[in-house]
């Protein structure tokens, strides 16, 4: 790195005071999107572009905010650098020029920690990054990838559970095509639960627990065996895990761990395999 220009102090995001939002902290605002422990690195305007590029490569960043004192002058990005270089006529080495010569032309978009992230989608699309500022200072750089990662984390469990539930329904229906078969399976598995109440007639009226009960019932398994593949013992264990995780997700008890996501994905992949097997033999749902 060029010896004469020093980096503006590196700041860990979690060391920065975030705006207090104790009662509304579960709303999906900008502060929820920022990855933990992000290191915000700002560079001074006089830093040679070559040094800045080296720094970006080293840290895996696609942009760096350029700051003079407390003022963010703009963003230095690979794109801005390339566009400027393409227009340069002289023989001057562009990597020796200061970064302030290569700032994004578009005005920098600023956001606060408690802003709605939806309002930033256009800016993220146009500029690839938004500068997030706290009460006194620059806090973070938000990129489209941060938003995508966050939304994926939030939505992944719901999507997996949806796929699991719909594929269970599809496979059960594929297994009980003949009239009366479904009703008989429902009766076997659910009579004790419903007692005097009338049993549900359609699969869509069953809860997830009831789908599982249909499969777990020993009297029903022969019916389902061909569609699901494997054994009742194995499916029973797999679906037990899904049932527990589904309750945690839908009752918002806790955030699922990586292992939990993997467990859901494994069951989903099993069901996909069973569905594809049916697809391959040309069966219809």
């Amino acid at each position, binding site marked *: 790195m060029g010896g004469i220009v020093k980096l503006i102090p590196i700041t*860990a995001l*979690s*060391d920065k*005071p*975030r*705006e*207090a939002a*104790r009662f509304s902290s579960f709303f999906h605002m900008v502060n929820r999107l920022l990855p*933990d*422990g992000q290191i915000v690195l700002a560079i001074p305007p006089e830093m040679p572009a070559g040094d800045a590029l080296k720094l970006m490569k080293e840290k895996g960043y696609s942009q760096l905010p350029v700051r003079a004192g407390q003022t963010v002058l703009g963003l230095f990005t690979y794109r801005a650098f390339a566009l400027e270089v393409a227009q340069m006529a002289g023989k001057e080495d562009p990597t020796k020029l200061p970064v302030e010569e290569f700032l994004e032309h578009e005005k920098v978009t600023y956001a606060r920690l408690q802003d709605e992230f939806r309002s930033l989608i256009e800016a993220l699309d146009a500029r690839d990054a938004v500068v997030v500022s706290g009460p006194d200072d620059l806090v973070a750089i938000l990129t489209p990838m941060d938003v995508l990662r966050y939304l994926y984390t939030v939505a992944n469990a719901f999507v997996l559970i949806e796929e699991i539930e719909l594929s269970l329904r599809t496979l059960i229906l594929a297994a009980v095509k003949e009239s009366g078969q479904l009703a008989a399976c429902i009766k076997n598995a659910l009579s004790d639960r419903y007692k005097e109440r009338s049993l549900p007639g359609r699969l869509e009226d069953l809860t997830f627990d009831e789908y599982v009960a249909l499969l*777990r019932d*020993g009297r029903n398994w022969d019916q389902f065996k061909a569609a699901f*593949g*494997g*054994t009742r*013992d*194995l499916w*029973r*264990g*797999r*679906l*037990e*895990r899904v049932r*527990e995780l589904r309750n945690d997700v839908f009752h918002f*008890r*806790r955030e699922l*761990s990586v*292992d*939990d996501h993997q*467990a859901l994905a*494994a069951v989903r*992949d*099993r069901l996909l395999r069973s569905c594809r097997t049916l697809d391959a033999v040309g069966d219809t749902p």
Partner: protein
Amino acid sequence: MSERQTRIDPRLAPHQAAFLRRVVSEFERGKRLQLLSPVGFGKSFAISATVVELLRQGLVQRVLLLTPAVLAAQWKLLAEQWDHAAVALDAPTFRLLQQDVQPDESWPPGWYVASIYFATREDVRAVLERQPWDLVVVDEAHRITGQREALVVALASMARSPAMFFALATGDRDVPSVAGRNVEVFDWTQIAEERRSSRDEARVERHRVTYQRTEQERELLTRVESHAQSIVGAAGIQLIQRAASSLAALDDALFQVAALGNEHAEELLRLAERVERDGKLDAVASLVAGARERQTLPVVVFTEYLQTLDYVSAALEDRGERCLRLHGGMQSDEHLAVLADLRTRGGVLVATSAATQGASLNFVRVVVHYDLPARPSAFAQREGRYVRFGRTEPCTVYLLEDEDRTLAMEELMLRMADKAHSIEAELGLDVDEFEDP
């Protein structure tokens, strides 16, 4: 003055009470203390009681306990046993504290429990080092090595005088370097002999139960074993360990490998999915049913794998057993509720070894090892859950043995379990000493 009178809870065993008394009385001398404790002596229970007593007497205001991540929830539960709410210092709590407390102010007084990894993360450590800790407790200090050791020492050195530093070692007689110099050692291994002749140990009976695998199982396992031997490195051993655990654990591993396009795994997976009857599962179901009929509940079934836990607990439920589940993915309040439920209402607990670390299961009447861990020390950890001080009822322990000895490793694991037990019982040594570093 009454505040300074040391309270000894009747739940503490004599050696635990003696420890608490000594720590409290000598606390202001600021000595560093290392507690050496074999598994099953309730070191975590004693430490938690001591910390709460120090807080109650006002000798300390802020305590930081560093522990392996897997034990963090357990420490919170231990604090709750003394009606004390410890703060689980994880990423969300850390963020909240950062929001609510100005950088130049101290965090609220209390007992903070953090995983060693989290506490030594650069940004977290920088903040922790600014807090005025009165006491830093390092759990399983002998397991901390390398670069992290220096970070933990630096963090522990931040404790204000009078400072106390517990280096809790399980069986290691050498003072771990993380504890530093001038350490006073409190050694419970000396009372191990007493335990071996005491009724607590004598009331635990061990049996091997043989079961017969079906022909389909034997074919599958023989082929898995031969496939595993062709795999270089740890993956082959892991595959056999899963095969020795349950069909579900094996099936899960095969599915993952088959998904990568491995045709051999795909073929084995198809074989696994055709196994209609599971001899081991049947054997365990009948042991559990027998315990229920003889009214020797609660039963604990131990396993190493979550897939086995799901598989066994769902099967036992379908056979009409009242089944509780305990695994590492559960919240600390759920852990506490499950153990309280088992103690008061009985039934069967199917648990992963990791989830029971630190828990006291001295009230269970029957223990079934559905599978065995690969390391003798891990087996000793399991045994430490139920061979404990305070046992009031006898306990029967079952190890399962395949009549045909289909998997060679299963036999080795059984021998290891016997060895772990005999080392402790006959030689008075800890199994850790017989392990590779």
